[in-house]
């Protein structure tokens, strides 16, 4: 969260337009009650009649089965480690090591914040660059999660994270590019995914991604939206037919006002104006319930614990239906444990059901399980993270974006003909010889002072991947051209068709080491070579951004030449998208100059200044619409006389009686707009207060509102009047005058405020300066220079692999031979204990066998 900082600290803002933040936690709801006496898994098992597993020595196939089913396909040496040990030892190991804590550090952007509001004045190029930056972040997050799953010592933990992602679905394509909402969602699932289900549920009901994805932002008392209520009961928690339509309607009312902040940082917020405070009846219970109460009501529902048990059965035991008594027992353990997810899992692993051979090979691995499992088990690191990401998408599983709120399916869902082909292709790609594939190129840095330039690209392949060349102009008329670079993870449009949405683009960052003599870079060009296209396919290159010496700029800040003949306009609108051979060029010296100007601190900051990141022009009403006419403004962070706000909104308005006034609304400030609200402030139905201060002595009530303010707040009002000249400039520069006369009318009106602010009534003794830290003109280049903060992390696609890597399939074969028990057992029995299949004599045979799909 961008903290409200003292003025002195506010100047840290000058260091850039993004700040270090802490991640907003879903506030702890007050109403969650969990049974006081909770029971451990072992204690519950000791008193229950659940059929228990026999604690016998493990065979090789059992070990492989357990590790595969609870996590990912294990490598031979991992299997060897557990052979002949008692089953309970392996179960204890799995439970003791169960963890959803990341072992790979999170991307930097996850604890920085961006402003998701106030884009109305932005030119299209900047909006597009903003969207692209967010999409790139989530692309990076997909690769981060993949690396997580490859490296984790707790595969069961990652499977649980996946399980919850696929339960509390909030896919990126439904989040309006809010990458941070995606991260908070994922982080909450990690935080609560092994612990208390009550906490998890409560967190999900306050989760920005869930609220956005299921339209709860539009859910308000006067216009209820049932989307969240329905999916909450049907998919998230209870299952169909365990509630009535009335329950949904009433739940929607309870959830009304459970919103995501409109201003400030992206976070949960209760909107009092949208809440429904009257009585509801949900699951037969009556009360004035709100969103927090929903979690409690659901937990108390007898089907809730069964629903979780059924879903976990499907995930960790089989897609075959469970015996009813098994679910009853699991649900009982879950309730008795105080809704501990880890306890329920431990009970399941200790049950005879989990070890029952009839459930072997009755489920289909998801693409993630197939791919991550194959890599971990084969120890072959032939594919880089981007390629794995691309492969998963081809098999139907773009991480963070299930096709709909019901999530990815199970079993046959993954055996769709089109997916089947891609599953085979993925295994082949993994097996391809190192060198044949475009193997990850570990970056060779000769010295810590190496002269490095990073380029981030995405692309589409047709008859081969896109190639490009980096071109530099440096010093006075010196030029440098890189060798041709080839993308490793462009989407194969011939086989898969074009990307359907920009959010699917898989980004890769290439790091180039420049000759030491290159300094003073003036221009950076990325040239797309050898365009190609044919029926059903197209080769294209997209330039995400370039980073050099700690400074990065988006491709969208550049210009494209020559552009496609058929669409010259397109090259102007999206200079970063090279659909035809051509070059995207960043005017590096100019962008750097603008960016440094941007970060210039104000001269002699004073306590009486209004210091803000930006005074944002949110909206102004077209004059032809008549009635109340206002200019809606919002300070993005405000510091004044030692007081601090995360955001502060106000309006310059002309009311329907023709009176000019400044308006301040209670829900537009955080924290409170005023130290003390005037008694005469108008209160709306929701109890929110509104203050209107006339620019002249129009009316008694308006004067009273002003005189009832504290002296600090009076000075604040005067300071707001003093912003009128700058607001006038903003109005003049706005591209949003949609009708003739709008500019003139608003210029005249704002001039009235300028004059009023300069009059004796409103002028402060010391002149007030409005200091905007990141604003200035809204010109294209300037705006683009402000983008900053691109995610340019580059692992070169290299990742750590739990259990280590091997150089080739032959080495794997040797590894198997070295395991005495494994080399003596028919290997197919290790894979899956069914029938009498052929023997697997090589890694190749194994990964290409249809058996690899099953678990």
């Amino acid at each position, binding site marked *: 969260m961008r903290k409200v900082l003292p003025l002195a600290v506010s100047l840290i803002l000058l260091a850039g337009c993004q700040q270090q933040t802490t991640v907003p936690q879903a506030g702890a709801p007050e109403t969650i009650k969990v049974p006081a006496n909770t029971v451990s898994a072992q204690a519950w098992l000791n008193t229950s009649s659940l059929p228990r597993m026999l604690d016998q020595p493990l065979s090789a196939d059992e070990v492989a089965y357990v590790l595969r089913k609870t996590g990912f396909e294990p490598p031979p040496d991992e299997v060897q480690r557990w052979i002949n040990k008692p089953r309970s030892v392996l179960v204890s190991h799995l439970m003791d090591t169960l963890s959803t804590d990341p072992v790979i550090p999170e991307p930097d952007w996850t604890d920085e914040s961006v402003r998701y509001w106030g884009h109305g004045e932005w030119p299209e190029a900047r909006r597009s660059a903003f969207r692209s930056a967010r999409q790139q972040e989530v692309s990076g997050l997909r690769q981060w999660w993949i690396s997580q799953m490859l490296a984790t010592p707790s595969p069961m933990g990652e499977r649980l994270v996946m399980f919850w992602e696929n339960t509390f679905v909030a896919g990126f394509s439904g989040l309006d590019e809010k990458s941070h909402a995606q991260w908070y969602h994922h982080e909450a699932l990690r935080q609560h995914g092994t612990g208390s289900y009550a906490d998890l549920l409560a967190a999900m009901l306050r989760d920005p991604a869930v609220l956005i994805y299921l339209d709860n932002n539009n859910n308000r008392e006067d216009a209820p939206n049932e989307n969240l209520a329905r999916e909450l009961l049907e998919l998230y928690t209870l299952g169909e037919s365990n509630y009535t339509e009335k329950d949904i309607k009433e739940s929607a009312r309870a959830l009304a006002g459970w919103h995501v902040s409109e201003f400030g940082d992206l976070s949960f917020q209760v909107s009092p104006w949208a809440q429904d405070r009257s009585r509801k009846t949900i699951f037969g219970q009556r009360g004035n319930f709100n969103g927090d109460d929903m979690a409690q009501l659901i937990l108390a529902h007898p089907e809730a614990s069964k629903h979780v048990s059924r879903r976990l059965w499907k995930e960790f035991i089989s897609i075959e239906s469970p015996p009813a008594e098994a679910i009853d027992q699991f649900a009982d353990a879950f309730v008795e444990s105080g809704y501990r997810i880890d306890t329920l899992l431990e009970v399941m692993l200790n049950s005879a059901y989990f070890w029952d051979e009839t459930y072997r090979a*009755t489920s289909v691995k998801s693409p993630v399980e197939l791919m991550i499992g194959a890599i971990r088990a084969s120890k072959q690191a032939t594919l880089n993270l981007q390629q794995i990401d691309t492969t998963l998408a081809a098999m139907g599983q773009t991480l963070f974006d299930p096709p709909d709120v019901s999530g990815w399916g199970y*079993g046959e869902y993954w055996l769709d003909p089109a997916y089947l082909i891609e599953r085979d292709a993925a295994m082949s790609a993994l097996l391809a010889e190192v060198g044949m594939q475009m193997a990850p190129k570990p970056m060779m840095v000769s010295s810590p002072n190496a002269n490095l330039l990073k380029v981030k690209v995405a692309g589409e392949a047709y008859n081969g991947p896109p190639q490009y060349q980096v071109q530099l102009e440096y010093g006075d008329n010196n030029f440098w051209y890189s060798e041709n670079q080839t993308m490793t993870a462009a989407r194969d449009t011939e086989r898969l068709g074009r990307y359907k949405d920009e959010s699917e683009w898989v980004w890769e960052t290439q790091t180039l080491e420049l000759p030491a003599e290159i300094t003073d870079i003036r221009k950076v060009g990325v040239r797309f070579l050898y365009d190609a296209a044919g029926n059903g396919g197209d080769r294209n290159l997209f330039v995400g951004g370039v980073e050099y010496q700690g400074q990065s700029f988006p491709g969208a800040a550049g210009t494209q030449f020559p552009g496609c003949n058929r669409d010259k306009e397109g090259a102007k609108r999206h200079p970063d998208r090279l659909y035809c051979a051509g070059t995207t060029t960043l005017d590096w010296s100019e962008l750097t100059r603008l960016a440094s100007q941007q970060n210039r601190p104000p001269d002699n900051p004073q306590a009486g200044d209004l210091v803000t990141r930006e005074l944002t022009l949110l909206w102004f009403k077209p004059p032809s619409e008549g009635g109340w006419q206002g200019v809606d403004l919002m300070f993005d962070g405000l510091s004044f006389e030692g007081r601090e706000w995360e955001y502060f909104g106000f309006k310059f308005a002309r009311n329907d009686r023709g009176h000019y006034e400044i308006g301040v609304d209670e829900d537009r400030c955080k924290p409170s707009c005023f130290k003390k609200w005037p008694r005469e402030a108008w209160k709306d139905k929701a109890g929110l207060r509104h203050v209107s201060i006339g620019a002249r002595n129009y009316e008694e009530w308006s004067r009273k509102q002003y005189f009832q303010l504290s002296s600090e707040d009076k000075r604040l009002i005067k300071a707001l009047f003093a912003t009128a000249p700058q607001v006038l400039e903003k109005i003049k520069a706005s591209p949003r005058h949609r009708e003739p006369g709008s500019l003139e009318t608003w210029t005249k009106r704002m001039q009235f405020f300028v004059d009023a602010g300069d009059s004796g009534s409103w002028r402060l003794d010391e002149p007030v300066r409005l200091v905007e830290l990141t604003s200035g003109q809204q010109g294209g280049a300037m705006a683009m220079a402000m983008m900053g903060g691109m995610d340019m992390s580059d692992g070169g696609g290299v990742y750590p692999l739990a259990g280590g890597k091997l150089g080739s399939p032959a080495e794997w074969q040797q590894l198997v031979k070295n395991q005495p028990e494994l080399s003596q057992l028919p290997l197919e029995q290790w894979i899956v204990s069914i029938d009498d299949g052929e023997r697997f004599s090589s890694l190749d045979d194994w990964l290409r066998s249809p058996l690899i799909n*099953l678990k």
Partner: protein
Amino acid sequence: MNRRDLLKAMAMAGAAAPFIQLRAAQQKKYLVLVELKGANDGLNTLVPYESDNYRKLRRRIGVKATDVIDLGYTSQEGALGLNNSMSALEKSIGDDLALITGVGYPNQNRSHFKSIALWETGGDGNRGAQKGWVTETLERLYTPADHPVLGATLQGSMGLFARGEGVYISMARLNQLADIEVDEKPPTNNRLLNLISKRKTDLSQASKTLEAELDRYSASRLPTRMPHGDLGGQLTDVMRVIGADLGVPVMHVQHGSFDTHEGQPWRHPRLLKDLAENLAAFRQGLQRMGRWDDVLVMTYSEFGRRAGENGNEGTDHGSANTHFMMGGRVNGGLYGEHPSLKRLVDGDMEHTLDYRAIYDQVCQNWFGDSAQPWAGFRDDALKGLI
């Protein structure tokens, strides 16, 4: 007049009904679905050009009255005209081009991904669906012997064939399909393993057949040269499949992106022009091949666009939309009721016709599926369409 036209003329004269039936039984039928990806702006496609409400909503991007082809249809918003960027289809107006307006579904979902998935599976905002809307009909009516492949997409996802039980492929992947290694393993007692094996065998066989046949019916044999560009390329392949009569009853092509949030005045007309020129050439080609009566072309899209323009000379995601249907057996005209532009709901036009009523027409009257899977959505507004 070629043979098909002759037959058609005879049929119209009431003389050749038996021939028509005979031919229908022999020649295979094709449904060509044209996805207008990104969501076409129906309001600037079929334009209520006299409506004051329209002018108010579309101050900057409205299509001028001089830029439409009057269709002679009126609505509650006055006369309707076709955006004259589509003038290539002028010949079809009143003949084999149907415009279906006010099309939508309850509780509009405004996500591209989600809404197109609803259209492809027959769901709506209240209830999703899982299986491609036409797959059940195809699987009921066709045998693998005559129709080794039930559906093919020339671009885009397999969403239209989601959960299909038959053989559905992506045509751009033909080469890839031919290399599939067929598992010769005997049946096991594992259901999933058997399913994998069967599907791979199906895919491999089907693709081999198609590839060989298609090689014989090359693009140079087509009587029409399609316009250059992506859509033209896709429709060329569709024509080859029809020419070789490979019996792929559903083919899916894609055109776009129609997601005109900005710059609509110059982007949208070009997209419409491209669409119209392609469809006109496609029609001409199939007529020359004598196969136009065996083809039904239908457009679909995620949703319509918002009635009011936005601040970027564009339009945002909306609801009700207008769609096209073309083919030798389509009775041209206007179907459905144009939504009111005065009574908007949250700035959106309210749909007057559930899109699944069109699916009902297609399944019942085009494919002749007696099971009538979409009969629950039947709407008299579409009577006589096919």
